[in-house]
């Protein structure tokens, strides 16, 4: 008998994170198939670092550690980063730990991070890695897209921001933004980072503006500037625009003024 009076109509945070992780599974399998044991090691290392950093942060803030770890937010960040930078190894582990401590725990833990730790960790890792553009990886892209579509069908992620970004990228194909579509980083960041509520606007209109602005900056830099890694580019734009989220919220959220 599955009766839960005081009904819950939506999944809770743990189950949402679990589903987001589940949606990354096909991409992870593709990656392991492509890169073998090295990717698995990176995955283990980054997961360990992320969990340790999260636990440390919770401990320093004198908050319960286990429930937070069980919620899987840190693990999700680690898996995403592994998919983004599978060869990075130790650098990735360090940057994910620093990013989680700095961007997630310092701002107050779950639900408070103004800047997404994954984007932050990408930038941190880029201080040590060469920002050369990664080769196109259609298999990984397809697996990621499938996962993102499933999430969006389940109602776990909000589609407005990624869709606006994609539309801009598609519209500006003539000026040379096509190579972006082959980058797994684009899909991963669009599907899992741009849909996170804390670092994106809360209203649908705000999310659309956010996605479009991201797309426009991304396309203009990618098409006009020097060749660079799409993931890095997108991550820095997302960080920059995350700071503009309060502004977008203020513009799109209007209180109902009394007469």
């Amino acid at each position: 008998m599955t009766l839960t009076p005081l009904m819950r109509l939506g999944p809770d945070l743990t189950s949402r994170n679990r589903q987001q992780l589940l949606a990354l599974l096909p991409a992870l399998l593709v990656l392991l198939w492509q890169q073998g044991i090295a990717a698995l090691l990176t995955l283990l290392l980054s997961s360990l670092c992320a969990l340790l950093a999260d636990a440390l942060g919770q401990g320093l803030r004198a908050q319960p550690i286990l429930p937070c770890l069980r919620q899987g937010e840190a693990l999700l960040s680690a898996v995403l980063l592994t998919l983004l930078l599978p060869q990075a190894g130790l650098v990735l582990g360090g940057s994910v730990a620093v990013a989680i401590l700095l961007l997630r725990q310092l701002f107050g833990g779950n639900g408070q991070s103004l800047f997404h730790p994954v984007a932050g960790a990408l930038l941190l890792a880029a201080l040590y890695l060469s920002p050369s553009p990664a080769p196109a990886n259609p298999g990984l892209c397809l697996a990621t897209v499938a996962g993102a579509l499933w999430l969006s069908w389940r109602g776990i992620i909000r589609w407005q921001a990624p869709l606006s970004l994609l539309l801009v990228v598609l519209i500006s194909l003539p000026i040379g933004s096509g190579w972006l579509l082959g980058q797994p980083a684009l899909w991963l960041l669009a599907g899992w980072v741009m849909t996170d509520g804390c670092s994106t606007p809360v209203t649908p209109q705000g999310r659309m503006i956010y996605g479009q602005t991201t797309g426009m900056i991304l396309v203009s830099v990618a098409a006009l500037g020097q060749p660079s890694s799409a993931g890095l580019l997108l991550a820095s734009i997302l960080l920059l625009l995350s700071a503009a989220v309060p502004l977008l919220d203020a513009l799109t959220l209007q209180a109902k003024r009394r007469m």
Partner: protein
Amino acid sequence: MNFGLYLPLLAGLACCNHFRLPPQARMEQALPSALAMGLATTIMLLCASSLSGLAGPGHDAAGLPPLLWPLLSLAISALLLSLGLHRFAARQTQQLGLGWPWLLTNSLLAGLPLQWLLGPAGSAMQLLAPLLSAALFTLLLVQFATLPQRLQRCALPSWLSGQPALLLCAGIIALALHRLGVCL
């Protein structure tokens, strides 16, 4: 110097500009102030580039050092603008904190590296670059005006609340802008 250093400079400048307001300034006050300062910077940069355009190729002939004329034009436009603001809207200028030292600082720090970076390039770039830079600067100013309200809702540790948190945000934004500038 490349854009990788120039863009973080803008972020730092915007952060400093936000700190010129009293610490308890609410968003209702900080937002118009940020907008006004952004627009003022746009005016100053456009004005200065017009001035250097007027001087045109002649300033080489005058024997001036290469960066002196842009510097002069930026300073002149800043002082002109502050004079005009003081003449026509003295009270609002004071309320919004558009004093001449700030105008001059913004004009020089935002405009001079740009002139240097671009050099005597094509005029289309000469038009576009000040505009984009001023737009980015306005965006940053507005971000710093609206961020404190959101930071209030975060569970920041007590030693970080207030201005230190804003500095942390400025650091993160500067990092992002640096990466973006490198890609340009």
